[in-house]
C-alpha cells in the first residue's frame, strides 16, 4: 500500500482555548431568502403603490409644481375618460397592440426556431451566436432613420423596429433555455430508440417550453417599449403618437393618462403570460 498523503503529520490535538462564540441575530424581515408574513408582504406591496401616489397627490395639490408640468390625478382621470369616450383611446390601443402582435409575433416565429437550433447544435451556435451577439448590441431605436429610408414612413418600418429590437435577445435566451435540457435526458432518449428529430420534438422542445415562455414574457415588455418609441416618429395613430400630439399642445394630463394605459396593458400582458406559463409548466413547479 502506498501513502498518497506521505507528508501527513499525525498527533493528538492539544487543548486550545475555546473558540469565541458569535451571537446569532434573530429572524427579521431582512433575513436572506426567508419567507415573511403575509401581512408584512401585503403592507410592503401596498406601500410601494400608495406612497408614490400620495406624493403625487400632495405635490400637485400643494401647487408647488404648476399643473402644466404635473397634472393632478383627477385631471389625468378626466383626460383619460375624455379619450375613452371619444373613441380615440380604443383606436390608439388597437393600433399599437396590432403593431406589437405583428412585430413581436414575427420575432417570436423567427427567434424560437433559431434559438432551438443554436441551443441544440454546436454548429448552430458557432454559426449564429457571434453575429447575433453583435447585432443585439445595436440599439433598435438607432435603426429608425435607416428603416424609414428603406421601408418608408408606414407600418413596415415600425414593425421592423419591433422585430429588430426583440428577435436577437429572444433567440439568445431561447438558446440558453435549450442548453439547459439535461444531457442525461437526451442520452436516455437515444437508448430508448429515439432518433435525432424525435429527441428534438419529444424531449428538447417540451422541456424548453416553460423557459421559452419566460423569455417571451421578458421580451414582450421590451416590445411594448419599442412600439411606443417607433410611434414617436411619424405616426397617425397609436399610443406613442398620442403622446407626441399631447406634447405639442402641452396637454400633460393626456400624456399621463396614456402612460397609465401603457402601464396597465403591459401588466396585463405579463399576467396573461404568467398564467400560460403556470398552466403548461405545472410539471416544473
Amino acid at each position, binding site marked *: *500500500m*502506498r*501513502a*498518497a*498523503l506521505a507528508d*501527513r503529520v499525525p498527533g493528538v490535538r492539544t487543548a486550545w482555548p475555546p473558540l469565541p462564540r458569535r451571537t446569532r441575530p434573530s429572524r427579521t424581515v431582512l433575513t436572506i431568502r426567508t419567507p415573511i408574513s403575509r401581512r408584512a408582504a401585503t403592507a410592503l406591496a401596498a406601500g410601494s403603490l400608495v406612497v408614490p401616489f400620495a406624493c403625487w397627490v400632495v405635490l400637485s395639490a400643494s401647487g408647488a409644481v404648476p399643473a402644466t408640468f404635473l397634472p393632478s390625478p383627477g385631471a389625468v382621470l378626466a383626460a383619460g375618460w375624455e379619450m375613452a369616450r371619444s373613441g380615440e383611446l380604443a383606436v390608439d390601443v388597437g393600433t399599437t397592440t396590432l403593431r406589437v402582435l405583428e412585430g413581436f409575433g414575427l420575432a417570436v416565429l423567427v427567434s424560437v426556431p433559431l434559438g432551438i437550433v443554436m441551443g441544440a447544435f454546436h454548429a448552430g451556435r458557432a454559426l449564429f451566436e457571434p453575429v447575433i451577439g453583435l447585432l443585439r448590441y445595436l440599439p433598435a431605436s438607432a435603426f429608425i432613420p435607416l428603416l424609414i429610408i428603406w421601408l418608408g414612413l408606414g407600418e413596415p418600418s415600425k414593425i421592423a423596429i419591433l422585430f429588430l429590437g426583440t428577435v436577437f435577445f429572444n433567440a439568445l435566451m431561447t438558446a440558453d433555455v435549450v442548453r439547459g435540457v*439535461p444531457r*442525461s*435526458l437526451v*442520452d*436516455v*432518449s*437515444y*437508448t*430508448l*430508440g*429515439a432518433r435525432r428529430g*424525435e429527441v428534438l420534438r*419529444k*424531449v428538447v422542445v*417540451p*422541456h424548453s417550453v416553460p423557459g421559452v415562455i419566460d423569455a417571451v414574457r421578458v421580451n414582450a415588455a421590451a416590445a411594448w417599449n419599442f412600439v411606443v418609441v417607433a410611434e414617436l416618429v411619424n405616426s397617425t395613430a397609436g399610443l406613442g403618437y398620442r403622446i407626441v400630439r399631447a406634447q405639442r399642445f402641452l396637454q400633460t394630463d393626456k400624456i399621463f393618462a396614456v402612460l397609465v394605459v401603457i402601464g396597465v396593458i403591459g401588466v396585463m400582458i405579463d399576467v396573461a403570460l404568467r398564467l400560460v406559463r403556470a398552466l403548461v409548466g*405545472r*410539471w*416544473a*413547479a
Partner: protein
Amino acid sequence: MGRVTLELVDVCKDYRVRGQRKRALDGVRLTVSPREFLCVVGASGSGKSTLLSLVAGLTTPTSGEITVEGRPITGPGPDRGLVFQTGSLYPWRTVERNVAFGLELLALDTAERRRRVDWYLAETGLAAVRRSLPRQLSGGQQQRVAIARALACEPDVLLLDEPFGALDVQTKEDMQLLIRQIWRDTGTTVLMVTHDVEEAVFLGTRVVVLASDPGRVAAEIRIPLADDRDLTAKRTPVFHELRASVEDLVRASHRREVIR
C-alpha cells in the same frame, strides 16, 4: 460454450484532461452470457461508468470492439436499455407516459402498447401512481419508472449505472429484491455497475472487479448463491466470505489516498 449477449474485446478509452491524455480503461475483456446478472464493482476512478457508457454507445472506445448479440455497437439504441442513478425521467410526462416513451416510437397499436405498459407498471409496483408526475414520486419510485421504461423496449441487455446509489438503505434493499425479481420474471441480461460490494454480491450471478488508474479487469468471481435468494442470504457464511474476498480485491486494486 453457449451464445454471448455482450462482448468487449481489448477495449481502451482515453480522455483528454487539460491537454493531457488520460487512460480511463485499459484493455478490458469481458463477455456476458444470456440471462446473466453481471455486477461490475470498483472504486471511483476505475472507469465503471465509462464502461457502461461505452456499452450504451454514448461514447466510442479509443480502441477495441464491443458487440451485442454479435452486432458491433455504432451508437445508442433500444437493444441496450440504460438506467442512470437519478434524474433521467421526463418531468412533463406521467409515470405511464414515461414508461410508454420507447413504445410510442414504434408502430404499435394503442391496445398493444397499453397492454405492455400495464404489465411493466404492475411488475414494478407502479400501477397506483401511473398518472402521477415524476416530481410527485419518491426516489425509489422514480428509479422503478426508469427501470420499467428501459425494460419496455425489451433490451438484449439492461444497463444499470449505480441505480440505487442515491436511495436510503431500506429502499435500496427493497429495490435489490425487486430487480432480482424482475430479472427472473423477464429473463433479461443485466449489466450493473456499483461501488457497493454487498449489493454486487447479493445481486450478481458473477462479479467483476475493476482496478483503478487505469481501469482494467482485476478479477472475476462467480457467485454460487441460489437464483431465488432473498435478504436472508446476506446473513449466510457463504455470503460473508464472498463479500470479504471481493472487498479485499477492490481494496487491493484501489489507489489509496489516506492511510492510518
